[in-house]
């Protein structure tokens, strides 16, 4: 029998941010610095930065209700050829970004049939190779996976 050995995930960074609008810029800058040197092509790095910013915005606004005293937690892990960024808040099952699951439709938005907003999760899904959401009690986590050598969504390049 062939034994498949999976690499042990390596934590590259972990930090917290106060839940204040605008702090998503701090998250994207720190994650970009953390993954520098891992061979992520520039276009894919830009996508990861956008996904991290949007997920952090959701955590600040919809998860923690813009309450600075409740931190957003960010963890960056390298798992073989995958960068995994986990962004956690305390929104639990009642996370208010759940209302954003309606697929944004630009034509409807232009006709006033849909709010102009609601692009956050849509952008995240289109920026990374995989997006997963888990909830454990009050802890709500979005997991962003980007392969360092992969090429998901290359059709957009």
């Amino acid at each position, binding site marked *: 029998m062939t034994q498949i050995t999976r690499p042990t995930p390596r934590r590259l960074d972990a930090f917290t941010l106060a839940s204040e*609008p*605008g702090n*998503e*810029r701090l998250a994207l800058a720190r994650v970009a610095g953390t993954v520098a040197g891992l061979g992520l092509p520039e*276009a894919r790095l*830009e*996508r990861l930065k*956008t996904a991290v*910013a*949007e997920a952090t*915005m959701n955590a600040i606004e919809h998860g923690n209700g813009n309450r600075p005293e409740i931190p957003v937690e960010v963890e960056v892990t390298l798992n073989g050829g995958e960068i995994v960024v986990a962004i956690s808040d305390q929104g639990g099952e009642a996370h208010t970004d759940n209302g954003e699951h309606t697929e*944004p439709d*630009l034509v409807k*938005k*232009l006709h*006033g049939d849909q*709010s*102009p*907003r*609601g*692009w*956050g999760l*849509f*952008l995240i899904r*289109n920026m990374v190779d995989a997006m997963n959401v888990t909830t454990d009690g009050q802890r709500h986590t979005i997991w962003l996976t980007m392969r360092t050598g992969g090429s998901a969504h290359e059709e*957009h*390049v």
Partner: protein
Amino acid sequence: MKSMCEATTRELPGAAVIELAGEVDGSAAAVLTAAYEQAVGSADAIGQVGTVVLDFAAVDYINSTGIALIVSVLARARAERRKVVASGLSPHYREIFDITRLSDFIELFPDLDRAVSQLTPPAA
């Protein structure tokens, strides 16, 4: 929230140009709305504004709320029968304009000179 977005407007025959700088996010709402009204209003004083040019060359960040603001500007311009074009987007934000389908409704140009050069002045 303090806006990190700045806008400069100018008029051309039949068109208004809004040059944006900084961050297009939720804090940019008032700046963008005021710039649109100033650009369209002042240009309308010298002739019908058929096209609004949004220049993003000096913009370093656009988030989902910024995309929503651009959608609102586009909806308003279309209701007023004006065309919107954009210039100076980085490759990443061009991709986002493609993904969101904004580029189906906003013609994209590499830079402001090329956007302006294709403008057709209104008939005398």
